[in-house]
């Protein structure tokens, strides 16, 4: 039985603890509010799109036109489209769909682009010829006269990310990417067993030539995938993103997951905002995805209140994640 003095001390201690905790909580809330307030306002367009055969190019033109500055920049410009091509497995929706890639290329050409190039440096699969032929991407691009550039064998340009989160100083990025007038990230809506989600920012891993860093771009893993994602985004600053969420992937993505028919396209000119909206639509919390949260400090916007959602109302559909990312669930 504790003495009354000890008991009082205990009460005092508890009071002090409660008071301290309340103060800390208030400070934390204040910090969160401040963190939200400093995020620049951004816009993201949601668009329902039930299938890859459903007037896809027309829908994409409408989506791009919702961003007048992007549309204006596209006129006469060299547009480089960066899809997410990983490896081919007919039974899994691993890659950005070739029909979607071709529709985006056709849309930009329709809007007056000078030329369009599709460019990717697959993370570990070196055989781009096989991917091109067997995925059907080559057949989709040929009638459009749109070439494919394998970024894994492209010349590299040293890019110095402003915050150097990786500590590497500079990152080798494919010349085709850096020479583009307008770089458009075309990710697939997927979960990822190493970082939680892979969307328009993580898609930038494919801009690093494999012949410099090897396959699967292991130095970026060793420097921290989250840090590498943020450095690539802040160093390259892609102008636009369109997410292929018509069929996404949940579970053990980016390769071994399962298909989710989501019927969704997302458009935006600020990649963290696009990825934050996509993450919420997957029933996950973007502020718990490390590279998205970290992007706030680099000028990124992920707070729901700072992103104006345009277009169609779309309800979140909870995506399964591997156990280590259970904490991402909303």
């Amino acid at each position, binding site marked *: 039985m504790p003495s009354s003095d000890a008991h009082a001390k205990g009460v005092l201690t508890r009071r002090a603890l409660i008071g301290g905790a309340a103060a800390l909580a208030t400070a934390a809330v204040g910090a969160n509010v401040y963190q939200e307030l400093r995020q620049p306002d951004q816009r993201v367009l949601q668009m329902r799109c039930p299938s890859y055969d459903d007037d896809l190019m027309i829908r994409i033109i409408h989506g791009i036109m919702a961003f007048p500055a992007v549309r204006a920049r596209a006129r006469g410009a060299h547009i480089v489209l960066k899809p997410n091509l990983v490896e081919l497995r007919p039974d899994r929706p691993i890659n950005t769909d070739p029909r979607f890639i071709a529709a985006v290329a056709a849309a930009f050409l329709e809007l007056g682009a000078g030329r369009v190039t599709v460019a990717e440096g697959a993370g570990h699969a070196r*055989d781009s*010829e096989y991917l091109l032929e067997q995925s059907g991407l080559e057949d989709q691009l040929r009638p459009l006269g749109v070439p494919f550039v394998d970024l894994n*064998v492209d010349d590299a340009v040293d890019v110095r990310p402003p915050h150097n989160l990786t500590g590497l100083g500079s990152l080798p990025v494919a010349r085709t990417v850096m020479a583009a007038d307008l770089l458009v990230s075309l990710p697939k809506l997927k979960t990822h*067993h190493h970082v939680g989600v892979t969307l328009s920012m993580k898609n930038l891993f494919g801009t690093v030539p494999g012949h410099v860093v090897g396959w699967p771009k292991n130095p970026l893993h060793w420097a921290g995938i989250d840090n590498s994602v943020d450095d690539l985004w802040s160093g390259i600053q892609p102008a636009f993103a369109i997410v292929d969420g018509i069929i996404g992937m949940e579970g053990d993505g980016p390769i071994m997951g399962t298909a989710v028919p989501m019927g969704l396209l997302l458009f935006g000119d600020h990649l963290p905002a696009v990825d934050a909206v996509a993450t919420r639509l997957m029933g996950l919390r973007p502020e718990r995805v490390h590279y998205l949260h970290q992007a706030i400090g680099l000028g990124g916007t992920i707070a729901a209140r700072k992103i104006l959602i345009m277009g169609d109302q779309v309800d979140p559909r909870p995506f399964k994640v591997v156990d280590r990312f259970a904490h991402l669930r909303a």
Partner: protein
Amino acid sequence: MKAALDAGRAYLRRVRRADSSWGYTHGQAGQAEPTVLVAAAGDGPEWLARSWLAQASLGWAAFLLPAVAWERDPKLCERALDAIAAFHSTPVEGMEDFDATLPGWSWVAGTAAWVEPTAFAMLSLRRAGRLPDRVDQGVALLLDRQCSDGGWNYGNPAMFGTDLAGHLDATGWALLALPARTQTQDAIAHGLHFIAGALDRPSTLNLALASLACAAHQTDPSPFLTLLAPRLGENGARGRADLTALACAALATHLEGWHAFV
């Protein structure tokens, strides 16, 4: 097939740069991998870009140089052999699906060992008759990394408890690098069975490596070569010097009776 080999070599001759190097694509500055691989295409001593290879920073492509150039220029290969000997991959503790502490070679310093660079280094060491203990370490790594389907993925046979599928190109390099021993007999047999899938998943890389791997293990490569030959034309294989060189190496094995890597 002879016409395809001639076309491939003609393309390589045409896109050779003034400094005797090759880019991956026509017009690109000289790159280490295609310049090394062209030496495997076998069209006489002029194919070895000695001065360029001696001066350039070859990176991981140095692991492959003695495999294709040892007989023609051992002196040139010494620097690459030194690099192979001095290179040690960084072990990774705590991987459940495979033993990531086994030593091998990585693409760049300070990272983990992967199947392809390990295979390149093993091929060179075997060709030059150097460091048999390091070859044995490479054998141990490749045996540990073989996937349940008989092929090799780029690095891991499984991830988070899920088996990964083999890839034909990585499998081709692993099979080329594995010496035929009692210890490797089953792995090679399973690998050769897996790589027959190149007939259903054709590409220049898959078919060239499948035929080279089969030829290295006394298995008939002609079904692969039949599909490979039409892929070589006026622009080589898709205008890529590295793919064209590998395709030429595969065809030369069959048509001229020598093997570029063994």
